[in-house]
């Protein structure tokens, strides 16, 4: 079966490897450039207080390279879309499953080995792309402390591997359930984008209960390192409610004192009227825990989808 899988996917695999090499070369060159700038500038100014010197030097978000790095967010989806969705569906459409499944190998084995290799390929492709992006964005993340933010967190370290495994399982499952390539492609695309958006916009904020800090509006509070902001606002100091039943109106919901309405900068006025700021956030030291949790979530969903696939293919007539 391994040999058969290789024969069926070798050209597409070579093409994917070629594209990956191109992306990797560009990002590696840009990354080495950024790293050398980083080292030379930080060597000049020592530690701290030299952020201003970098801004123009490290052009990490130079339009083309930056766009390329952002485009790697599609990398985990593509193997699942282009190889996963047709894997079963195309065989059923062309009837070749009747050839494949009447050889001396059971359907289960056929599915297990093909799926196994495709999952591995997807994980590898996404892993390599993520490693390159992680390397490329290292200096920028050190400078701007934004590794935990949406659109960065999703591109680096291990989560893309989880996404890729999920996309592959999703594609294979959709192909087995819908039995046609085009609907399987559509469902894979929609479900992948949907779950990713749901997780990034909402679920991720709640993997652990956030840390809440109240602060004097006159002395703005900035957590150390790259943190993930959950919510932020202004609250009347004596209305504090302790987390987790934290339920206060944010700035918009607060009745603005008359005196402050006309003030050009209302912040000192708010502070004077007994308001304080609050920030709910996930601190930087939770970055790896969050990477792990998010990867695990997608892997669990992938396992469930593969379970459905095996069940459907075994139970339904071919």
């Amino acid at each position: 079966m391994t040999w058969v899988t290789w024969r069926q996917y070798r050209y597409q695999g070579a093409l994917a490897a070629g594209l990956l090499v191109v992306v990797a070369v560009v990002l590696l060159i840009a990354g080495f450039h950024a790293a050398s700038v980083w080292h030379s500038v930080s060597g000049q100014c020592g530690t701290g207080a030299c952020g201003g010197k970098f801004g123009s030097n490290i052009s990490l978000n130079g339009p083309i390279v930056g766009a390329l790095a952002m485009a790697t967010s599609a990398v985990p989806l593509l193997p699942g879309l282009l190889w996963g969705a047709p894997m079963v569906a195309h065989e059923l459409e062309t009837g070749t499953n009747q050839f494949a499944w009447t050889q001396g190998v059971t359907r289960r084995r056929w599915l297990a080995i093909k799926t196994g290799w495709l999952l591995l390929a997807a994980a590898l492709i996404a892993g390599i792309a993520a490693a390159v992006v992680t390397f490329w964005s290292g200096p920028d993340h050190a400078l701007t402390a934004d590794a935990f933010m949406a659109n960065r967190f999703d591109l680096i370290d291990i989560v893309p591997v989880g996404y890729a495994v999920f996309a592959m399982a999703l594609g294979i499952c959709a192909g087995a359930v819908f039995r046609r390539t085009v609907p399987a492609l559509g469902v894979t695309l929609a479900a992948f984008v949907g779950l990713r958006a749901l997780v990034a916009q909402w679920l991720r904020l709640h993997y652990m209960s956030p840390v809440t800090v109240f602060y004097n509006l006159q002395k703005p509070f900035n957590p150390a390192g790259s943190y993930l902001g959950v919510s932020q606002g202004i609250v009347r100091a004596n209305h504090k409610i302790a987390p987790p039943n934290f339920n206060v109106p944010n700035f918009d919901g607060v009745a603005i004192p008359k005196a402050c309405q006309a003030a050009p900068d209302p912040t000192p006025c708010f502070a004077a009227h007994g308001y304080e700021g609050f920030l709910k956030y996930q601190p930087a030291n939770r970055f790896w825990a969050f990477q792990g949790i998010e990867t695990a979530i997608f892997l669990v969903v992938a396992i469930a989808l593969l379970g459905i696939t095996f069940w459907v293919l075994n139970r339904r007539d071919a």
Partner: protein
Amino acid sequence: MSVAIETHGLSKRYRKVTALSDCSINVPEGRISALVGPNGAGKTTLLRLLTGLAASTSGEAVVLGRTPRQEPVYLSDIGYLAQEIPLYRRMSAREHIGIGAHLNSQWDGESVRARLDVLNISLDQPVGTLSGGQRAQVALALTLGKRPRLLLLDEPLAALDPLARKLFLGSLAEAAAGGDLTIVLSSHLIADIDQLCDHLILLASAEVQLCGDIETLLAEHRLLVGARKDTTAIARTHTIVREETTVRQTSLLVRVNGPVIDPAWAVEEPNLEELVLGYMSQNYASRGITAGADQLSSIGGLR
């Protein structure tokens, strides 16, 4: 002689349609069985149940001593060639031989190559670029490469021109020559498989009409032709399968129960085509479809 296929009350229902109903057949080992019937009679369904590609709704099947299912020991004894001759169009015959070698424990790739060499079919051309007849030959050779004990072929001749059909049947006859291989061949081209087959399974409307040795079946039936007359005397002793009456004469297909001695009838043994057509048109008549033999030929694909 041991039994290759035995089914009891095998049925397959889809949501609204009954594709096969209460099918009980028996095919002895080493026979070449013609599975005939009009389109939609359940031929493909029966073959797919026997391969294990589909599961029956009720009833049981025993094939080569085993229940059809997803097991390497079962699959390796069965060679199946589906109706649309599915192969990977972009792959060459040689690549298919490779696939066969990796998916089968008792694979004979050399025989596949030899067969295709004799027929002068390229091993390296993508099979999608071969002619229909060549593709069917590749598929048959691959199926035989499994060294199956039972070969199930679903309408392999349907898409072939007369010459390709002749070559294909030649390959099949050669494969069957050893005598160990049991073949079930579905077709609606009776004339073509008449020479090859010695066993008949006739399906119509999802039910088995006839199953048995062709010689025996023919010997049990008679064609009676006579001046237009009352048939009740015949029906008293024999079973009238089909009655066709024109202005001047009546012709009957009869399952006989002893000799027909009425001198008013000209009696002769039917040939396979007449027998099959008789049962198939009986079936059409019972469904309220009145059709002449010419129309039937086109409906059932009979020639």
